[in-house]
């Protein structure tokens, strides 16, 4: 009965419920460019020395779309969902799900990182993925 990330290497789950998750990435030791997820080579300067970074996921919405094409039920419940691109305060632009609770998504709005449960496995493990929610709302 543990929480398990849908894909390894993308998001760090907090040890305690209620603590915030972090996006996993790397920061170039030479030029400081930040990436999500982590990369073996800096794409900006081709430096080979990058340090692991955990990003708080705060940022500003760059684009959003309401997808009304259902996914396989094994991936995510619900027929429709929102996807956004977010300019993180830490640097990179990332793409991810929006929280189903978000009301009136709009370009320019402030976002923060949250988690959602995609499904519960037979043994009780919760499969979770990160999403973006309106900053200031409980996540």
């Amino acid at each position, binding site marked *: 009965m543990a929480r398990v990330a849908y894909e390894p290497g993308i998001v760090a789950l907090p040890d305690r419920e209620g603590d915030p998750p972090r996006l996993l990435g790397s920061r170039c030791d030479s030029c400081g460019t930040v990436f999500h997820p982590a990369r073996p080579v800096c794409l900006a300067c081709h430096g080979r020395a990058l340090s692991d970074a955990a990003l708080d996921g705060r940022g500003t919405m760059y684009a959003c779309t309401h997808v009304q094409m259902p996914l396989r039920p094994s991936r995510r419940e619900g027929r429709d969902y929102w996807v956004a691109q977010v300019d993180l305060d830490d640097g990179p632009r990332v793409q991810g799900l929006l929280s189903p609770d978000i009301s009136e998504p709009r370009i320019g709005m402030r976002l923060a990182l949250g988690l959602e449960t995609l499904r519960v496995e037979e043994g009780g493990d919760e499969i979770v*993925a990160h999403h973006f929610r309106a900053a200031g709302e409980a996540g």
Partner: protein
Amino acid sequence: VRIENVALLGTAMTRFSDHRDRNLVDLATEAGLAVLAEAGIDLRGVGEAYVGSMLAPPMYGVRIMKQLGLTGLPVVTVEAASATGLVALREATFAVSSGRADVALALAYEHGMRRLPGSGGITPGYESLMASPSSFGLWASRRMHERGTRPEHLASLAAKNWNAARHNPLAYHQVDHAMTPEEVLASPVVATPLTQMMGAPMGGGAAAALVARDDVVRRLRPGQPLVRVLSTALVTESYEPGWIALGPSIGPPEMTATASRIAYDAAGIGPEDLDLVLLHDSWINEELEYYEQLGLCRVGEAEKLAEEGATSLGGRIPVSTDGGLVARGHPIGPTGLAQVHEIALQLSGRAGSRQVDGARTALAHLVGGGSSAIASLFQREE
């Protein structure tokens, strides 16, 4: 560099359709045999073959080529997602221009409706939680925010392509009435602001082209206008701030500008010399973006170009005269060679009711998996 002395010897395609009663080998064989028949040769006359698909299992290219004969020729499988067909033609062109082959074959095939065991597909992971049309919805939403693009712009371009396909019996979509922007807008939403009729159907099909030295084409196709491959440029993404690593996402649109600029420069022509364009409209908002990136208009003026009807059949610079990906269909692998087939018809005056009067110069453009772009230029000899 400009490609010297390489021309189209023949082109062929199956209809693009769901083909639920046919298999991949059958479709590929039909296109391969048809292109050989059009050129009046058999496989003994082909020096090299570049074959491809996005989803076919490994080794299918070599197996498919056995249907056409066993002559010992080199066969290389090419895979570049949606750009596969044009990349196969690029390699076949270089096989001829390098002197390795007098005649080379590009053949591409796909069957999205009847996938074989071992076929490629979506990798599970965070990306799989976002259906691929979401990337196009995101792109379109940003353009609406920055440029004031309206859903009606998207719908009118989609209707243009559906109506062009009414003149193309090999197109996936065949409608019995004039398509209107209203009908496009009324179809189900896939990813706002995109509706179902603004996106390309996959289905299946196959297409092929033979390229050869000019003298070989003159000998084998006497009386046919010579349509040359002038240049071809393939690029992948260059890093820019804002680049998104985890998608599904589409790389910087500047890939298309870069590829086309390299192709124009190599050919010694510019966008003003084009008589028609085939571009990557897997979702119709791409068409607006690529008008600008291909230089058909200035950045920020694509909506105006569309409003003027300049890119419709009969307009100043017709785009997607065969219906484009949206209506001719986009089985993925063979799409680029369907574009080449359309260009061969148009530049040799054989395009029937969709003929662009006096068409001499054409551009084909595709984007592969949002990660690469290819632009190829063709011109009929005066």
